[in-house]
């Protein structure tokens, strides 16, 4: 039971770290979306493509972190 709990607490630390990183990525993504929208509404359409690419990369980062968490859980059984 103690082993199980210490393993879970290790996982909690890991998930906390991943969550903090996802929060950072998400904050950047929110800013990026609002900035791209503002630029688009101001009539500058050239920012849409780089905005979409960077947003895609940020989403990929979040997805990789989430996958890392679920895989780690599966490995530990």
């Amino acid at each position, binding site marked *: 039971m103690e082993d199980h709990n210490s393993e879970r607490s290790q996982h909690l630390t890991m998930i906390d770290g991943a969550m903090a990183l996802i929060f950072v990525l998400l904050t950047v993504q929110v800013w*990026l979306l609002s900035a791209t*929208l503002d630029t688009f509404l101001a009539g500058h359409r050239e920012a849409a493509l780089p905005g979409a690419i960077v947003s895609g990369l940020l989403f990929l980062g979040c997805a990789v972190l989430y996958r890392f968490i679920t895989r780690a859980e599966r490995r530990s059984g």
Partner: protein
Amino acid sequence: MKTDPVERKPLWREEFSIFKADEKYVSRRQLTKFLTLTSLGMFAGNIWILAKSWMYKEPSYPVKAVAKVAEIPVGGVKLFQYPGPEDQCILVRTAEDAYVAYSQKCTHLSCAVFYSKENNRIECPCHEGYFSIKDGSVLQGPPTRPLPRVVLERRGPELIAIRMQQEPEG
């Protein structure tokens, strides 16, 4: 018949554990999943903007007489609709032979702007956003974008609106 070598717990036991550490773990994992889905939503938003920018067509503006020169005194104002009947614009005669016209919608939250003769600028009464009378650029306040300008041309006694200009020239 093959059996799964790793025996997995049923989903309900994974999601509703009786152990406190497990419960914290599951709730945080679920939050992480939610955050990842939110990130997907943001990405979809950016893709939507990209699609809109690809589908964007330059608008065509009508050529329309908006005022007669004689009806506006120096420092006077006339309101008109351009390019559509719903698009309120403001025309100001700044000197004997100088006219400027802008969209009357503040670029912050779309309040109707007015010309302040004392300060020689366009003002928004809602959040004290001030715009330059010369080119519609932001002087102060929450708006970040200049007022769209109506390009005018004088043809005899009439002022003709030709097109809208989103950014000041130069």
